[in-house]
């Protein structure tokens, strides 16, 4: 799976680096002084690199947990995201990562202890209300857990810090690391969905909708809370029927009391990211849709956006109370 592993010199001796290197005995290790030497240079082609990404092991410095865009919460008032990894195993055509990053290589920041310190500090800043931490903005939280051991490393903190809440955002069915633990009230595994007809065209390498629903079911059967992320909404043929069927499939199998939250957001992208993505995949019909440029963001025309979102809201409210549904506004740009 991984042929080349770049390693920052400063973390050569880190126990997690050693563990990961043991897991890839055939990979060629190459040292570098900073991951940005490999990741940041211009003139790289994300699409070509996606065929065979390398792994970069690095140390994350500076601020590790950052505030999320204001409109991205799921009920909490204090919200932060952190990225122990950059990039994703999957290849979703709408994903903003391909517009944001110059490289498709996976970057794994091995200094989890620093992330946890920052998460603890943020939690302690205000103990009167929950603080939410979102882990799947710049990567999928679970799909590469076999390499990262992320869940095993972070869950113990949330087990002993009830005021800190964690969202794991994923399209993966790799729920084993969660099932090995007792459910935690303050951890939500949020699954992103588009209808199967869209998923099969746009979400390359992603498990089928039905297998993701099965993964959700296994989690809820074991007492874990799950979330639904209907983001991005894709304007498409048979829109109402497709989304209606998707919601029917999900809600007929997942007990609604185990669904923590549902968030909705239409496809939107900073114009600079969009142009890059369009150039990478000129044959992608998604980018030739009924879109417009609105103050630096490419999104569906307002009337279409409003109508599609309203349709989904109505369909969702047939299954789940409105208080559990959250709207991701256009000012933001993240979708798993």
């Amino acid at each position, binding site marked *: 799976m991984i042929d080349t592993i770049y390693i920052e010199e400063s973390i050569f001796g880190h126990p997690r680096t050693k563990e990961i290197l043991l897991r890839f005995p055939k990979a060629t290790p190459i040292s570098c002084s900073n991951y940005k030497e490999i990741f940041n240079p211009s003139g*790289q*082609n994300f699409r070509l*690199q996606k065929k065979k990404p390398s792994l970069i092991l690095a140390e994350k410095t500076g601020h590790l947990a950052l505030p999320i865009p204001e409109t991205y919460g799921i009920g909490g008032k204090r919200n932060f995201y952190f990225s122990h990894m950059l990039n994703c195993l999957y290849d979703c055509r709408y994903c903003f990562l391909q517009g944001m990053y110059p490289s498709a290589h996976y970057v794994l920041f091995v200094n989890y202890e620093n992330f946890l310190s920052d998460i603890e500090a943020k939690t302690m800043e205000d103990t009167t209300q929950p603080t939410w931490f979102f882990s799947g903005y710049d990567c999928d939280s679970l799909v590469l857990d076999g390499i990262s051991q992320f869940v095993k490393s972070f869950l113990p903190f949330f087990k002993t810090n009830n005021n800190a809440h964690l969202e794991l955002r994923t399209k993966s069915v790799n729920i084993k690391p969660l099932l090995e633990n007792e459910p935690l009230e303050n951890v939500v595994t949020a699954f992103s969905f588009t209808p199967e007809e869209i998923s099969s065209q746009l979400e390359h390498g992603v498990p089928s909708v039905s297998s993701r629903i099965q993964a959700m079911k296994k989690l809820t059967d074991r007492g874990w809370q799950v979330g639904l992320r209907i983001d991005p909404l894709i*304007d498409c*043929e048979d829109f109402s029927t497709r989304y209606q069927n998707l919601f029917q499939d999900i809600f007929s199998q997942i007990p609604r009391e185990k669904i923590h939250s549902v968030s909705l957001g239409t496809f939107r992208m900073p114009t600079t990211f969009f142009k890059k993505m369009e150039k990478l995949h000129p044959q992608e*019909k998604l980018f030739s849709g009924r879109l417009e440029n609105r103050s630096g963001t490419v999104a569906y025309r307002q009337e279409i956006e409003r109508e599609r979102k309203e349709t989904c809201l109505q369909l969702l409210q047939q299954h789940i109370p409105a208080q559990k549904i959250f709207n991701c506004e256009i000012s933001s740009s993240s979708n798993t």
Partner: protein
Amino acid sequence: MEGSAFFATASRFCTRELVQSVKIISDNPQSPVSGFDKSTVSSLITPAIPLLRILITEMEEIAREISPSFELDTTFQEIARLHSLSQTQEYQVQKIIRQADLFALAHSEIISIFSHSTNLKSALKHANQVLEEKRLFP
């Protein structure tokens, strides 16, 4: 390293993944260059040529994957002959041609729109109207 200048220059003309440098090492501490026999060069390189051919073929395939279509360019050149285009208009026309191709609209139809319109603005508008019906994601 002798390859660095080559790499830096070649990277200006194409994506980095398509710039590869193959180095043939003639000497090392155990076999110093003083003992190197030039007549062995061919016999060292010849066995590696089949492997290099595979590499070249694969790289050509990858390059084709990201190269603009010749047919789209031909259509663009034809339209550019009909209208004088600013930089922005070039982008708009190229986008329309690409989308027309994506939606399986005949190139001749697009050329016809641009050749029968009195000006570029109305041609772009007309072409966009034709494409509009096909924009809904399947």
